[in-house]
């Protein structure tokens, strides 16, 4: 998964390990940090194992096997990058009247869909973009309609 790292460095202003992530740590970030650092490689196994033995007959109960997590901060103003099944930044704060752009850098389609359906990008395939201008102050929650675990927030001041 880290083979694309070089590319990411040029795309994003900062690429830092979660363990060094000092600013903007909310409670949930802290919890996630603890979880990731306690993860161990001991149970790692090749992905897409051919399921030819008995070990796959039980549910794997593993933590994510990667010990480090890359937190990316997007350098382009008023832009949310969709990558690795996340919105980056997850929370973007803009002034009223700002046009926000989403761009999908993943190799699977995603959407940016407002929880209240105020905006909906529809399908964003790889490298597709979507714009929405936020004229009213407020907090706008959105998610990916295909992968609803992916959530983000635009705060308009």
């Amino acid at each position: 998964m880290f083979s694309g790292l070089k590319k990411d460095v040029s795309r994003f202003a900062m690429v830092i390990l979660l363990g060094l992530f000092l600013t903007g740590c909310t409670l949930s970030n802290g919890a996630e940090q603890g979880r990731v650092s306690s993860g161990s490689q001991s149970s790692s196994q090749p992905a897409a194992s051919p399921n030819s033995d008995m070990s796959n007959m039980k549910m794997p109960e593993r933590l994510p096997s990667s010990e480090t997590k890359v937190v990316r901060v997007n350098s382009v103003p008023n832009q949310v990058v969709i990558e690795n099944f996340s919105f980056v930044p997850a929370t973007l704060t803009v002034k009223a009247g700002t046009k926000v752009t989403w761009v999908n850098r993943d190799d699977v389609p995603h959407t940016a869909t407002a929880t209240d359906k105020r905006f909906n990008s529809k399908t964003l395939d790889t490298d597709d973009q979507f714009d929405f201008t936020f004229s009213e102050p407020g907090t706008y929650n959105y998610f990916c309609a295909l992968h609803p675990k992916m959530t983000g927030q635009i705060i308009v001041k």
Partner: protein
Amino acid sequence: MSDEQKKDQDNQLERRSFLKCMAWAGAGVMWVMNAGVLSSCQLVPGYSRHKGVFSFVQISDSHIGFNKEPNQDVTKTFQEAVNKINALEDQPAFLIHTGDITHLSKPEQFDTAAQILKGAKTNQVYYVPGEHDVFTDDGKMYLERFGRGTQGNGWQSFDYKGVHFIGLINVLNLKQGTGTGLGGSGFGQLGQDQLAWLQKDVQALSSSTPIVVFAHIPLWTIYPEWGWGTDDSAQALSYLKRFGSITVLNGHIHQILQKVEGNVVFHTARSTAFPQPAPGTAPAPGPIKDVPADKLRSVLGLTDVSYVTNGSPLALTDSTLV
């Protein structure tokens, strides 16, 4: 013979057959349920699969329209899956496609999939949609094309030679997971209308009727962090718990996973398009990209299901495209 003795004998047989399986090597994996225990065997070339009352084949996640690593020609691998089915000695009674027929719900992608399936020797295909088939228009196009004879938003049931089949839809109106990152479910959901229909659908059936349930997103919680589960699946299964044999077939996760819980056998099928990582082994559940071209067909495949005799569980045979 006492029950204990019988059990011992069964165990010995099982051990023996297991060791034999260990020595086999081949293209497919066969799953057979025996006395509540799943065992797996590699298929040897020329192996004669279970001959039973009838069989059907599950195909899944053809993602027509996907064109990136590790598979830039998913139409071809889908066609190969259909060719493989057509080459079976005992033709399946029908096919079940457990969703993500297309990658982006585009009309031409639906057309391509339908065209390839027209080439199947069996002309009966049952469908349930995946989220990729419904997310642009809440499933309107899917229903127009594949929803004939279904109820509500596309759910359905039918009987075949004494087995009751139920196709459920758990990919509509997916709700946002709460919070960012971990937390919230973001799971599939069946919804109250469909659950009410299901309860009524099975009401008049005798408890000895074998049940096969098929749906896209797994009806058991596989990995909450990736939303691999269905919010209200427990309620659906509660309507089925009185039945002696329940087989649940799902797709969505592009790999084989199995679980047995009481009388319920849960099984997920491989994709015909691309593999996804085992739960938790990657930062995200996207396609595994670095599959060498000559290995691709060993991680794609289909599931053959045989109904052997009344009272025995269905035999599941997974095989790859090579």
